[in-house]
């Protein structure tokens, strides 16, 4: 299945290879190029604006409707008529144009892109900054605004400046209770909120090799919090197995950077020494080890979002909470990332365990991540989430405080009502 990359030349990074293939010429970091795109997608947060821009262009139908995907995931079910009307615009547009459509309740776009669409070597653009998630499958996937994605939908192509690459080498075994979330939070703390602006982050090393697809998705999901254009994991046997499980083995290709590729920077992380990490209010790069933050009283714990609401994440939370009750002064909200995860977590008893421990389960979607749905904290309250952003006001109230961490840290925190090192309860 590996395509001939001969015309591209040697010494290329994953980004340079994928962009060269889609430009049909050899391109290197720093060049600006037009490329074909494999998938474009939008959702109920930006889709109506995208449709308006298509109309403005005089385009009634996307270039390739079968490769244009519309998700209703941000506010589900809709609590307001204004939002219902916008969602209904998307439904109508999908029906009229033959675009692929995922109805409210199907799950978060980034999770469904991983489950059904993304594969190594593709270019995917979406109207959402966390489109980068699909880089876990070695797809060049990035977020853009509604106008850029409307043009990509209309023409089947877009333009990029080919990014320079930071190679992130992670070696050693993660301690029990430490996860990909802790690696990426640590890295963002190291780089700063704009430390990788415009760059590609490529994750390699024995720790990355051993991570499941679920964990790789966490890493790539959050690269945008350091400003990166894409996050990429070379495709390997883990990628192959994931695609095989999804009935998409024929989409597997091996893609990795050439041995003599050029990197702007190489960052080495020792996974063995890493303890659970927490992003403190109000910026994602305000990262501290849990030992410096534990004890902070927490009112709400949210396990959800495109970052950390997969089956593995719910299993970790359930293993910590099984047969126990969350702290009486803390509420726990759990939102599975997709319908498939929801059904599996129901079938294997995970949801029952979480509900019996005191959790409220809400339907698959973005949930309370960005403050437009139920679960908004009160003034002065503290919310601990497994999401990717803790900006002022992010969870719907600028007078609240948001901390970010792994599902294990979240579950341990729900148990004690205070930020807790998950290793103390596992």
């Amino acid at each position, binding site marked *: 299945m590996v395509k001939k990359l001969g015309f591209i030349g040697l010494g290329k990074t994953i980004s340079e290879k994928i962009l060269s293939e889609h430009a049909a010429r050899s391109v290197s970091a720093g060049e600006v190029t037009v490329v074909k795109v494999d998938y474009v997608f939008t959702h109920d947060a930006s889709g109506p604006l995208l449709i308006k821009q298509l109309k403005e262009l005089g385009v009634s139908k996307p270039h390739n409707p079968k490769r244009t995907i519309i998700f209703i995931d941000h506010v589900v079910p809709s609590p307001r008529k204004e*939002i219902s009307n916008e969602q209904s615009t998307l439904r109508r547009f999908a029906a009229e144009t033959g675009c692929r459509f995922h109805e409210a309740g199907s799950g978060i776009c980034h999770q469904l892109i991983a489950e059904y669409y993304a594969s190594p070597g593709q270019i995917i653009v979406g109207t*959402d*900054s966390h489109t980068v998630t699909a880089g876990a499958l070695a797809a060049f996937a990035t977020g853009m605004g509604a106008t850029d994605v409307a*043009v990509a939908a209309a*023409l089947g192509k877009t333009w990029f400046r080919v990014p320079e690459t930071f190679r992130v080498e992670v070696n050693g075994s993660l301690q029990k209770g430490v996860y990909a979330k802790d690696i990426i939070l640590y890295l963002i703390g190291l780089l700063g909120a*704009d430390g990788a602006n415009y760059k590609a982050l490529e994750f390699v090393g024995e720790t990355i090799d051993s991570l499941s697809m679920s964990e790789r998705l966490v890493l790539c999901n959050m690269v945008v919090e350091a400003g990166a254009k894409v996050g990429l994991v070379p495709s390997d046997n883990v990628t192959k197995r994931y695609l095989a499980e999804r009935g998409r083995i024929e989409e597997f290709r091996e893609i990795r950077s050439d041995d003599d590729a050029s990197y702007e920077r190489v960052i080495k992380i020792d996974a063995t020494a890493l303890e659970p990490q927490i992003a403190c209010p109000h910026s994602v790069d305000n990262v501290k080890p849990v030992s410096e933050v534990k004890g902070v009283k927490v009112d709400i714990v949210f396990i959800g979002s495109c970052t950390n609401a997969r089956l593995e994440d719910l299993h970790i939370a359930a293993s910590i909470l099984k047969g126990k009750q969350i702290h009486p002064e803390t509420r726990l909200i759990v939102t599975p990332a997709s319908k498939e995860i929801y059904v599996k977590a129901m079938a294997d008893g995970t949801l029952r365990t979480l509900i019996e421990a005191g959790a409220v389960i809400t339907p698959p979607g973005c949930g309370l991540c960005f403050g437009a749905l139920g679960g908004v904290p009160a003034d002065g309250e503290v919310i601990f989430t497994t999401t990717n*952003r803790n900006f002022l*006001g992010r969870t719907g109230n600028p007078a609240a405080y948001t901390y970010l961490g792994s599902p294990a840290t979240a579950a341990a925190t729900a148990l004690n009502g205070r930020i807790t090192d998950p290793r103390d309860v596992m």
Partner: protein
Amino acid sequence: MTGRAWKFGDNITTDHIAPGRYFHLRSNLEELAKHVLEDARPDFPLNVKKGDFVVAGVNFGSGSSREHAPTIIKLVGVEAVVAKSFARIFYRNAINIGLPAVICDTSLIDDGDLLSLDLSAGVVVNHTKGLEIRFPPLPDTMKKILEVGGLIPYIKRFGDLQL
């Protein structure tokens, strides 16, 4: 024409610019614009005037890809956003909708200073301080897009992406 500088700090996010709690107003940009940047400076949406400038530190517009953010800044009449640096999605979005995003040394500008902008000459004039702040020209691709008023007018004129 001059406008006043509204000074903001580093890392102003799209959640400061267009807070998620007003999600339902995304279908009504005029209403959403009444809340533009209110979580960073509550006085800004109340008092901003046509021709004013948003002036910020590093990484302006970080976070979400919501194009509503630059759109409502433009809608309230802001002439340009001037910052030490921009997050990449916001930068592209601003140019795409025809809102100039200028990278220069904003430490030479204080809140309330009177500014004017000459895009083609690459200069922000600080009339209050009697300073000319030079900035490098936009990358060619973005310059072409901005010159015709944004990406949609660009595609309508040229019919394609021509780099």
